Every structure is written in structure tokens, then in C-alpha cells.
């Protein structure tokens, strides 16, 4: 019952969101598109951080890889968008698998440090490989196809892509793989001695998370019509991590609320003050001390074990 109710609510939410362009406000449509893209980005990271307990400080690398791949395919090679986006996902998947191969060999802090290092490496490549990425001048004039040229059409396209991608990530989070990730987070030794190939599970999760960050990056490159090396910079990784923490680690929908809240706060404060970084720091400190379960935790969703609330759903179903 409850699960069906949730699906109905989400479908209604998507339909409601599809009406945003009717408001006639271009600003609102832009803002909503940006939020959608970051919802996908944060949800992909949550698979790693929330379900797997793997704190990545380099998730923006995959956002940037997907972004550049999509931009290059569209603009440099003239590939149609319906092939370019999947193509960007394939490129990101391959690079995530390679980077992940090294990262999941390490645990805890070392994993985090290595993701940070790889993130900076991707930034350096984007910065230096001027012929392909445009270097620090950025990749400008991304060739967005005509049918996505208006803010409204691009918004609706993003809404469709993000909704589908989030649905896929939901299935992954509730699949045997997702459940096994949580088990590894809790007790890696035990999981191994149940016969679970723990590293392979983590590698596949890392690759899936990276791939969907790449899809978010691909959308962003068209949204922004340009892309800069800064999209791979560690601050970008930190920002999406803050979205996950603010929204609620491990609760599936929490990070979406986190993305929404952080972007709205950013917009509001930029109009009032130039001290956004300081405010961001304060938000993070307050969240960590007083709302460790994030915004989702405030509404009764208890994330940390990740399982409690889901079990509730099932017994009601």
C-alpha cells in the first residue's frame, strides 16, 4: 500500500513539475532545470556514500567526464543528442570502472583520498588538454539541438531523463547489489565470509554511481551551453557531498531535498550577501551537529542503517 502510494505521489510530483514552464518565468524554468540536474548528481553520489559507506571526494570527476564527453560528441563530432548522452554515459562508465578499480582496493580514508586524487587528475586533464576541452577558456558553444533550444523544452527533456535515471537508481538501491552494499558497509568481513565478492560489488556500485553522475554532467553541459575544468574541481565534489549530507545520508530521497535546498539557499543568499561560502560552512556545521540524519531525518525517515524505514514499507505492502 505505502509503496504504491509513494509511486503515485512521485508520479503526481513529476506531472506537477512538468507544469513549471506554464508559469511563464524563464528564471524559474532555469532554476528548476539546474535543480533537476543536481538532484540526479546527488542521488548518484548517495548510492556510494549512503548505501555503500564509501565517501567519495572526487565524484565531480565523473560529472565532468560525462559533461565533456557529451559536449565533444555533440559539438566536435555532430552526434545527435539521443546518441551523444548515452555515449557520454558509456565513456563515463568505462573511466569510472578504471578509476574505481583502484579506489575500491583501499578502505575508509584511503579510499576518500584516492577519489580526491583522481578527481584532481581529471581536472588537470580538462585544464591542460586544450585542443579537446578548451582548457581554462572552457568548452564554449555546446551544440544543443534545435528541439532543445528553448528553456522550456530543455527543462521537460531534463525532467524526463532525470525521472527515468532516478527510477533506475531506485531499483539499484533496492536490488540484491544495493542490499549487499549495505551489508558490506556494516560488516565487510562477514559479507566476505558469506561468499560475497566485496570488491566487485563495490566496483560495480562505483561504476553505476559514476555513470549517472556522467549523465547529470551531460545534461549540465547542454544546460550551461559550456563547460569549464572547475566542474571537476574538488569543491564541486564537496558541494554535492554536502547536498547528500544536508538531505540525509542513506535515505533514498533525502539527497534530492538536499540538492533542492542547497541550490535555493545559494540563489537566495547570492542576492543578499557575498558570503555564500561562509553560510555554506555554517549550514554544514549545523547539519552535522543537530541534524545528523539531514532534512529527511527531520521528517521521520531514519537513514543511517538505511534499512529500518524500508522494512516498514514492506510490512505495510
Amino acid at each position, binding site marked *: 500500500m505505502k509503496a504504491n502510494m509513494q509511486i503515485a505521489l512521485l508520479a503526481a510530483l513529476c506531472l506537477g513539475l512538468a507544469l513549471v514552464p506554464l508559469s511563464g518565468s524563464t528564471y524559474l524554468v532555469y532554476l528548476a532545470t539546474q535543480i533537476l540536474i543536481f538532484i540526479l548528481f546527488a542521488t548518484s553520489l548517495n548510492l556510494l556514500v549512503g548505501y555503500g559507506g564509501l565517501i567519495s571526494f572526487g565524484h565531480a570527476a565523473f560529472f565532468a567526464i560525462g559533461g565533456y564527453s557529451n559536449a565533444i560528441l555533440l559539438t566536435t563530432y555532430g552526434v545527435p543528442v539521443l546518441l551523444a548522452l548515452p555515449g557520454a554515459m558509456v565513456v563515463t562508465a568505462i573511466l569510472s570502472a578504471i578509476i574505481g578499480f583502484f579506489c575500491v582496493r583501499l578502505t575508509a580514508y584511503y579510499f576518500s583520498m584516492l577519489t580526491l586524487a583522481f578527481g584532481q587528475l581529471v581536472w588537470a586533464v580538462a585544464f591542460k588538454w586544450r585542443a579537446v576541452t578548451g582548457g581554462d577558456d572552457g568548452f564554449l558553444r555546446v551544440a544543443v539541438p534545435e528541439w532543445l533550444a528553448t528553456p522550456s523544452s530543455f527543462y521537460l527533456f531534463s525532467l524526463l531523463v532525470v525521472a527515468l535515471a532516478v527510477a533506475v537508481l531506485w*531499483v*539499484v538501491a*533496492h*536490488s*540484491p*547489489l*544495493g*542490499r*549487499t552494499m*549495505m*551489508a558490506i558497509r*556494516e*560488516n565487510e*568481513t*562477514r*559479507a*566476505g*565470509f*558469506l*561468499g*560475497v*565478492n*566485496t570488491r*566487485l*560489488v563495490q566496483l*560495480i*556500485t562505483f561504476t*553505476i554511481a559514476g555513470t549517472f553522475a556522467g549523465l547529470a554532467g551531460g545534461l549540465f553541459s547542454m544546460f550551461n551551453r559550456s563547460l569549464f575544468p572547475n566542474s571537476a574541481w574538488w569543491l564541486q565534489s564537496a558541494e554535492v557531498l554536502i547536498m547528500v549530507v544536508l538531505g540525509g545520508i542513506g535515505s533514498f530521497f533525502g539527497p534530492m531535498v538536499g540538492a533542492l535546498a542547497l541550490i535555493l539557499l545559494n540563489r537566495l543568499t547570492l542576492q543578499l550577501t557575498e558570503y555564500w561560502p561562509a553560510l555554506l560552512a555554517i549550514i554544514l556545521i549545523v547539519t552535522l551537529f543537530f541534524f545528523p540524519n539531514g532534512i529527511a531525518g527531520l521528517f521521520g525517515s531514519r537513514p*543511517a*542503517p538505511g*534499512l529500518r524505514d524500508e*522494512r516498514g514499507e514492506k*510490512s505495510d505492502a
Partner: protein
Amino acid sequence: MLEVDGITKSFAGFTAVNKATLTVGVGQVHAVIGPNGAGKSTLFNLITGHLTADAGEVRLEGKRLTGLPPHAVVRSGLGRSFQRISVFSKMSVRENIQIGLVAREREELCFWRPLRDRRRDTDELLETVGLIDEQNATAGQMSYGKQKQLELALALAGQPRILLLDEPTAGMSPRETDECIELVMRVVKERGMTLLFTEHDMNIVFGIADRISVLHHGEIIASGAPEEVRANTSVQEVYLGRPAR
């Protein structure tokens, strides 16, 4: 069934297990005994690959286990428990079992569809170890004895041919100990498994073991049928001569 051949492990100059050799036959109940600190748990962790051996080799049904990662050891047909309880303590009992069943069916990489409930297999395992009434309890909040039962269920989840239990009754009251041993022996008989276990309680060991190996200062000083071991003079010196435990 299981051959341990000259396995050795040192920690910073201290030799915890020294050239330990033992053979466990199919269907046997084999106990490893020894005073505290004799190296029983280390030996166990070496056999299951939880620790890397400095020298020596472990073979299961002729297949070399040494150097394999834990999941490969388990997939070779071995199930183990831990002396210190090792379960998924934040998950429910039922969820613990489900992870075990996912692993048994090699389904842990399946990400394209939601987890199946596996009601029948889960219930069966829960009934085997007597936890059906606690299935929705959070594992870490159950009594010590119940957590030990769950520990056993997890060791059984992979349908092992050989079961390794590290001090299955450690920390239990006499009554819990009796129940635990009865449960283990029943399951081992029902499923036709081979059992290798460590134990400090002499009464239990001589009551149920077909063969006993005695570990002292990391070395196996005697191995054989209970009567032989009981009659062995060096065993009497280091172990049986003193009050049990």
C-alpha cells in the same frame, strides 16, 4: 576433506601458530583444543584465509585454499562463524539471512531488479536455528545467545560441506551451552556436514568429538581419537593436568 599442512603465522616476532598440521576426514567432528592463547583462533583464521599464512598450505577436497580471498574460500564449500559475534547488527535477523541467501545464489551483483523476499529459504534457515520468532528483531539488540544462533545461521547460509565454528559456546551459560551444542550436532547430522571447531570446555569436546587436536604455544602436540589424546602424557602435562579452563 580438509588438510592443513605446516601452516605458520608470526606477529612481530611472536610465532602464534607454528607448522600446524591436521587432517579432517569427511563427516568427522574434529575439535581443536588448547589453553587460552594457544593459537586456536589464529589457526582458524589461517584455515579460512582471514589471516594470510607465512608458510604452509590448506586444502579442501584437494583444492588449495591458501591465498584465496574469503568469498572464494566460502564458495569452495566452507562456512565459518566467529568467536566474537560477527553479524549485520543494524539489520533485522531476516535481513541478515537474506544477505546470506543472496550470496549463496551468487546474486550479489544483480542490480537490475529489486531484491526477492526468498520467504521459504529464509524461514527454513530461521527455523533450523530457532530464530523464527525473532525474525524481525534488530540483530544487534538481541541477547548474546540469540546472536550466536544467528551467527550459526549465517555460517550455514551458504550450505557448506564443512562447518568451522570458532568457540561456538564462548560466553554462554551452562544451559545455553548445552542447547547450542545440541543444535550444532543436530544440524551437522541432518545436513551430513563435516565439523571443525575450537572449544575450551573439555566436557563438551570429549562428549562429541570424533577426533581432537591439541594446540599448545602454537604447535599441535597431539592429534587423535579422544581416548588417545586423553592418554597422551604431554597433553596431560600442558592441559589436562590443570583444572579445565
